[in-house]
């Protein structure tokens, strides 16, 4: 059995912040930020909560299937490092807000920026234990602007607020392939309960390019798929330089690596979901595609999921 995408949705913070905002009070410039990250704008919340973004993305996702029997949704996973509160879980609040059947396995997952990929793998595993036709709703949601040190010129421009949602089921087909890597380390990237995000950009860059390339190669080898046979690599949208380096490492053109980080910045566990929603809107996820999703993040964590010959479900 393999994962099949049914639909997607997204929501982003209501304020658009361009690079000049940072240049207005820090020793930086639009050009410096563009060259080091590829980011032109990011969306920050005004007064929205993480739950607000998660709910909007989930509603946008489910709203695309108006006739859907929501009781088929048996698994709900929310990936986030910026939940509004520890308890109740974001996923539990969503169950109530979305009016989902209480007969639901819902929980939050924290794997930092790897959260979306990790959640999808967990959803895949869980769906196998439910009756065929059951659905998993996956939501990555973050409000990073409230956890950013706005005086830290090395990273304050990187982060955005948003949520990405997707609905999945299992269908007959070639098994998906997953690989993960965890390297416990608190020197490279931290986010405390009080302390804002601290990051050693160079070390993270090195980890991201080195380890993400490795897990991608691992799933391709296990799936017996050559890099050029993958239609789209959907990578965590952290930094254009990281994505460019991975494309070069795999000896592929950048057109297989769609991005939107120029507009949204790094939205951590939401980024791949937001990207998928845009590709879905553009019709780029219709038909048969082989997709490779990959993320890396604090922990340090890293994961890749190969959806081989991915058949998009037609509702």
């Amino acid at each position, binding site marked *: 059995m393999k994962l099949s995408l049914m639909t997607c949705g997204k929501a982003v913070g209501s304020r658009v912040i361009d690079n000049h905002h940072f240049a207005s009070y820090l020793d930086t410039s639009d050009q410096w930020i563009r*060259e080091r990250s590829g980011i032109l704008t990011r969306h920050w919340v005004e007064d929205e909560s993480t739950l607000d973004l998660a709910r909007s993305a989930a509603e946008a996702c489910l709203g695309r299937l108006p006739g859907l029997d929501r009781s088929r949704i048996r698994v709900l996973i929310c990936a986030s490092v910026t939940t509004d509160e520890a308890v109740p879980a974001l996923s539990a609040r969503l169950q109530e807000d979305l009016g989902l059947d209480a007969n639901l396995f819902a929980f939050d997952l924290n794997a930092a920026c790897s959260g979306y990929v990790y959640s999808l793998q967990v959803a895949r595993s869980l769906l196998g234990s439910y009756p065929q036709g059951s659905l998993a709703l996956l939501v990555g949601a973050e409000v990073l602007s409230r956890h950013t040190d706005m005086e830290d010129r090395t990273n304050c421009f990187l982060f955005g607020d948003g949520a990405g949602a997707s609905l999945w089921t299992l269908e007959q087909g070639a098994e998906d392939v997953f690989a993960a890597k965890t390297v416990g380390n608190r020197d490279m990237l931290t986010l405390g309960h009080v302390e804002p995000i601290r990051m050693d950009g160079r070390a993270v860059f090195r980890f991201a390019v080195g380890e993400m390339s490795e897990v991608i190669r691992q799933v391709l080898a296990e799936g017996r798929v050559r890099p050029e046979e993958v239609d789209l690599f959907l990578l965590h949208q952290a930094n254009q330089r990281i994505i460019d380096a991975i494309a070069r490492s795999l000896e592929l053109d950048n057109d297989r690596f769609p991005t939107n980080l120029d507009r949204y910045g790094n939205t951590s566990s939401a980024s791949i979901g937001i990207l998928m929603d845009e590709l879905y809107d553009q019709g780029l996820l219709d038909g048969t595609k082989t997709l490779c999703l990959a993320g890396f993040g604090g922990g340090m964590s890293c994961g890749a999921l190969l959806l081989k010959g991915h058949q998009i479900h037609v509702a």
Partner: protein
Amino acid sequence: MITKQVVDIVVDLLGVEEAQVTPDAMLIEDLNADSLDAVELAMRLEEYFNIKVEDTEIEDMKTVADIVRTIQHYCPDLEV
């Protein structure tokens, strides 16, 4: 051999002309590299020469000659 490979890698990574990549050329000041370029350069050197470049060495690689010396340290049998 080391120098030729280093020049090729620098040219490919930074998109500069080969003639610019002289031994005294400063990566940041002359070849417009930034801190992430330096990390990626180190990763490419590691891959090509099958070595491990430490973070402190990356910071010390300020010129093309510095890079060549670093590779020489790990690969003493290779021709410069």
